[in-house]
């Protein structure tokens, strides 16, 4: 047991007396009460737990919290600034992407990382970036459309 300090959504957070092996997922959910990041499989297969670790999408279920010490973590709660949804979040709402919605935080984190690196992704780029995220309800068609819409908005086009 140890104390671990990490930056979550731009805020410094210290976890007191924490098991260093605890996956970041459970540290976020149980200790910091940031429950937007979801548990699906625990073995980095489904992507529901995807967060940004130093800007890169990672599966927080398989990352010990000790590895996040001193690092910048962004979760789905940290995407919107001052209640202003990002272009992707806005597209997700406008195109009514979710069914059950449980995977969508992870989908959004993967999609956000994609658009940060590629402002005009092709279908193949989307396939590659999103293949790690399972949607059990099957909203892939809409996720693809929402990524394209958000990319267009971010590039300065209308929705």
């Amino acid at each position, binding site marked *: 047991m140890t104390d671990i300090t990490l930056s979550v959504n731009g805020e410094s957070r210290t976890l007191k007396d924490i098991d260093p092996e605890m996956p970041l997922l459970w540290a976020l959910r149980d200790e910091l009460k940031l*429950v937007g990041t979801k548990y699906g499989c625990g073995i980095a*297969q489904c992507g529901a737990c995807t967060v940004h670790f130093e800007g890169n999408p990672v599966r927080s279920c398989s990352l010990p919290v000790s590895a996040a010490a001193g690092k910048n973590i962004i979760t789905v709660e940290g995407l919107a600034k001052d209640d202003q949804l990002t272009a992707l979040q806005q597209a997700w709402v406008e195109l009514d*992407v979710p069914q059950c919605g449980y995977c969508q935080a992870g989908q959004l984190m993967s999609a956000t990382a994609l658009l940060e690196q590629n402002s005009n992704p092709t279908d193949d780029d989307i396939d590659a970036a999103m293949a790690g995220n*399972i949607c059990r309800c*099957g909203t892939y068609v809409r996720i693809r459309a929402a990524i394209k819409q958000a990319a267009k908005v971010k590039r300065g086009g209308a929705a």
Partner: protein
Amino acid sequence: MKKQPSNTINLNRRHFLGSGSALILGFTMGCKQEASEVAVSSIKNVSAEVTKGSDEPFISTLFNAWLSINNNGTVTILASNPEIGQGVKTALPMIVAEELDFPWEKVIVEQAPVDPVVYERQVAGGSFSVRSLWDPLRQAGATARAMLTRAAADGWGVNVSDCTATQGLVTNTVTGDSLDYGSLAIKAAQLPVPALDSLTLKSAANFSLLGKRISGVDNRAIVTGQPLYGIDANVENLHFATYTSCPNVGGTLRSSNLDHIKNLKGVKQAFVVKGKGGYGELREGVAIVATSTWAAISAKKRLEIEWDTSAASSDDWSEMHERAKQIISETEGELLHSDGDADAALAKASTTIEGTYSYPFVSHAPLEPQNCTVSVAEGKVNIWAPTQVPARAMQAAAKMFNLDPASVTVHQLRAGGGFGRRLYNDYFLEAVAIALEAAVPVKLQWTREDDMAHDYYRPAGTHGLQAGLDDQGKLTAWKNHYVTYSEDGKEPVRWGAYMESTFPRQLVNNYQVNQSLQRQTIPTGAWRAPISCAFGFVINGFIHEVATAAGKDHRDFMLELLEKDDQIASLFGDPFIPARARDTITEVCKRAGWGNQSIKNRALGLAFYFSHNAYVAEVADVEVMAGNKVKIHKVYIVTDVGPIVNMSMAENICEGGIIDGLSTMARLELDAKAGAVVESNFDQYQMLRMPEAPEIDVHFLQTDNIPAGLGEPTLPPIAGAVVNAIFAASGERVRELPLSRSGFTLA
């Protein structure tokens, strides 16, 4: 199989919670209580409150079990059924808002309390939510609108016929004056509730909200990661629990290293929970209560348990699968159903066709593993659960633990998928048992491995089919030897029974079903479009074989088969009407460009299935590449489910049903060895992912029929459409699912 009730709910006295006298819920601003806990005030009390302060207090006037009209320009509509991703938390309130005639932007949607007396069927299952609530919700809106109009007319001293009520305003058409609903609510709610037969409900042509694309009411909370789901529940002093029961279904506990577990970091308690393991009930196991989910999971991994498996299941599913084929080749089975004389017709037929079809056991695998949060304090049990059957779960817990039902409150939280899994309350009862024993608030969290090991699986099945054609290529005989499973050797397992009204029964004069049973003890359950989800593949694949043998175009053969204009009894409530089936088939073929295919190794495949009172036709555009790689380019779906409530979610659900069906047919299958399911996580149970998802064209034939739900019926046709396209493109007939078993993989 028992006839499934049509489950229509009639608006009645209970829904008005004491009709004739107004029920006003007085809330102080910023301190709103749940509707179920609010004491009903009299008008007088509320009026006094109105005049008390300088700021007008928030007043919400309850009109019926779903609708309250507020004095701040909003209305509150309660969504009474569980939201599991099928969109009812948005769709059901839309129906009320339409007939109330109120702007959707000003509707506040809240999840209703769980109250089986008031709401009757608070269930997410059978694609019944919209269907069963269509009339009562329209009437709930329309009665309120009529009462508001009457209140305004009385105030103006004019006839009701001189007033209109639209978009939240009652207007005096003579003077042009208007009043908003909020200002009329208290007076209107005191008027007698109009007789339901006096209401004029809107015709579909006059809908201003229904049929539009409306974004889900929880979408903003979903995309910003707000707590919504069962797994997100939090209460003060919450502890975290895991539960471990025998992987060999039905095994009991002999000994365990509980003393060691109790001393592990973060573990607060560890104890054995006794259970008889009845269907959907408590299985015996070990509970670990810890300070975090991770501490509970870590301790679970260090559990060493000696199980007594002497009474456990010994199922071996791959062995049983092989045995099923043998049963078909060697035996006739017992006669289950017969119209005409199938054997004689087969003997007389010009052409006979045979094929044995099979499909495997599969898991529901909702993405949110089972979980449940329970707090027991001061004689009250509060339960937060992502359940499809909140009322049934509440009653089961009260009964099992001898609790006063009035002391148990279930809070229905959004579920991260259901697909039928959360119709069963095992995890729910485990959580209550653990909380009662631990005497602290507990969130039970199943691991994915728990979820895969202890499901109520979709039963596998094998069908030995035979058909006969006359010299005109007309279907004259249909015979099926169906091999299913049985726990007692007498009755089929749950959702493994033959569906007697199954298409094409009554469309062919000589129709016979024989049945054989194999013993099987791992529990089975309702999996999205139960029975239909598998039969849709079998029947559509075989009909295509028959059409091919007849030398006829598949579409033409289907339309010919469906040429009857009779109504055919079905198990789903409404009769099956062949004309509606023909319309969906014709339209989907038109949209897909049926008959115009000319790309090498690429073809269209058609399938139709009727389930849950929905008519669904699908066409898959499939390319078969080298090495039996299958690329599904596009899927077309045309359904007739009556009027569409929320176009956006209706389209989404069609896409989802197709993706789920493709995912399941591509490579999902479970094996069991010695009564334990082998596949334990998504690395061994690989669902469809983004790169494999096809483009999907969704179209609705909007008819005036009573709406059918969409959650289930869009799935059954897709596997048939794909295997038929594979045949058309490659000449290879797939009779065994998943595709991986037949040597095909998705590209």
